[in-house]
């Protein structure tokens, strides 16, 4: 049984249909890349799996660990092991980064019947994890994402993923706006989280992140549907040909 199964998913945002029947199966241990031009619905798919209330599922289903996610709150999905690294991480003035991550980790631990970490245990954990994404410890005591640079925000997302250890990690355009050094650090962080029991979905516009994080499968999303699936070589083909051939194909079909 796949860890995640997206079946004929239709999603509306503000009354407009963005996803028009997406099918996708992701098994434990696999990394899937979802590529596609702007406006193809990549982020919509990512946000819908994480449970953002603005994304309305009108048809189809998302099955995770054998259970439908529809009707489940975002926090329930997170506690079940789903993690979305945001394309635009939100700034929350007044809440320290470490209080935020401690609250999140302990909420997830509580939901699994595990004992909460105390302040001391958490500090030890967070320092170790911050090290792996080469994050300045000073950012832990700052307000969540407030005044962080673009690269710091993305690294902070990967740090959260490292702390929360999800079963399914979804990276929504984590590479956008990163210079090559930041890209490498983010990719190293993601690669260190690769594990047989963990799956990842990498949503990206460009192929370059996939030089660092090598996917098992690549899917091309266009016009709200997956129009092509293949291995990692598909990403290279896209890099070479761009996305314009998709339009030609779509025209040819119609």
């Amino acid at each position: 049984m796949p860890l995640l199964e997206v079946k004929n998913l239709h999603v509306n945002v503000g009354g407009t249909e963005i996803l028009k029947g997406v099918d996708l199966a992701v098994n434990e241990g696999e990394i899937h890349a979802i590529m596609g031009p702007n406006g193809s619905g990549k982020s919509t798919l990512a946000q819908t799996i994480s449970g953002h209330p603005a994304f309305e599922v009108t048809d189809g289903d998302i099955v995770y660990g054998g259970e439908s996610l529809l009707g489940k709150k975002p926090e329930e999905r997170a506690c079940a092991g789903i993690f979305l690294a945001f394309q635009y991480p939100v700034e929350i003035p007044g809440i320290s980064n470490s209080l935020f991550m401690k609250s999140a980790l302990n909420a997830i631990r509580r939901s699994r019947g595990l004992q909460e970490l105390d302040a001391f245990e958490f500090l030890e954990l967070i320092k170790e994890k911050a090290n792996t994404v080469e994050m300045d410890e000073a950012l832990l005591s700052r307000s969540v994402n407030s005044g962080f640079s673009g690269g710091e925000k993305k690294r902070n997302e990967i740090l959260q993923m490292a702390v929360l250890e999800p079963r399914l990690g979804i990276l929504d355009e984590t590479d956008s706006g990163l210079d090559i050094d930041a890209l490498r650090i983010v990719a190293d962080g993601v690669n260190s989280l690769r594990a047989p029991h963990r799956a990842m979905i990498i949503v990206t516009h460009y192929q370059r992140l996939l030089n660092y994080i090598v996917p098992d499968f690549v899917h091309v999303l266009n016009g709200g549907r997956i129009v092509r699936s293949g291995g990692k070589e598909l990403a290279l083909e896209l890099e070479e040909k761009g996305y314009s051939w998709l339009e030609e194909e779509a025209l040819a079909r119609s």
Partner: protein
Amino acid sequence: MTASPLTTPLVGKEQFLAEFERAESAFADNGRGWLQPIRREAIHRFAQMGFPTRRNEQWRHTNLAALESQAFRRAPDVSLNEEIVAFARSFLLAEPGALQIVFVNGNFAPELSSLAASDGVRVSPLAMAMLDEGELIRRHLARHARLDERPFVALNTAFLRDGAFVHIPKERRLDAPIHLLFVSTSAAEPFVTHPRNLLIADEGAEAKIVETYAGLSGAAYFTNATTELVVGPAANVEHYKLQFESPAAFHLATIQVRQERASRFASHTLSTGGLLARNDINVALAGEGCEGALHGLYLGAGKQHLDSHTLLEHASPRCSSREVYKGILDGESSAVFNGCIQVHPHAQKTDALQSNKCLLLSDAAAIHTQPQLKIYADDVKCTHGASVGRLDQSALHYLRSRGIAEAEARALMIYAFANEVIDGFRIDSLRERLGRRIVERFQRNGV
């Protein structure tokens, strides 16, 4: 049909005028003849002004009809039972060496107080201090809090009986805070107290002074408090005013501050209790080169109405003031923020900054926010801003997407909003306790 005057208690202004007639002979007995003309002037002024109506610009958004239509008795004497003692103790500060003076229903409670001061620092009931500090008290008491347009200061002054007296002598720098705690208990009938505090920090003195007002839940009463605070030349005073009155209480308080040259003063207020509460803080930056800061937080729920009026009077050159007020309103609560900055003609090089931010948690909650700048000098830097908003939904979703349940996520964000003010509280036990209270308050209300 006319009801018998015996069974219809007087209310509003009339009850206080009648009570003054009855009480004055008792006041006159205490051997402080110099207070008598002050009281008489005050009751006269109160009689002229009466209860302000909403036609009065300063009271436009605060309706006193419920207060005016109620009869208030003199505060009952109570014996300190376990409940009252435990309640009072829950507000005491944990800092070692803190000097704490406690009043229950307006009466000094020596059993709950710890006043062992040294090096000339004096914390004592005002009535007691009048016996041996007559000269100092006479120089300051009722000299700073003006009566014009302030009917409740006039009322307080007319009924001036007791409260806290604090004197920090020259160059004394206190580490441990001084705490004034006013507890009200429940009684068969609503009652009124008029606490009057006089706080004096001499030249170069430093102190943190906390005023707490708290009432047992269910208690119906009216606290009408006035505090006069003198910050001497180059002195540094932090003043904290915490208002946890009972949900049925009326609380009207004025804090009048006078800052001498090169002094520093910071006010931190928290207003969260009471059915109707108003806090007036008036700071006169009287000497050159003063720094004044006003930080306030008001937290309303249910049908509460919380009014914060501040006046920063820049009366001398080269003074700076910083003001940050924040509010969180839930249910059908309402609040007023009115911040006036007044710059006198010769107060050049004034630097004043004011901001008010309010978070509305429900559709029925309302805030009236109004800055007032009255600037009569030309070389002045003055900025102000106000914002009203709701909880940021994208931040809320971000927290929830990390596994934090909605109720906890909301509490975290409310705490984060309030934290800017609470974080400035430089008394550790207070900061920790208030953080917890804020989270509990809005969780209890099902937010």
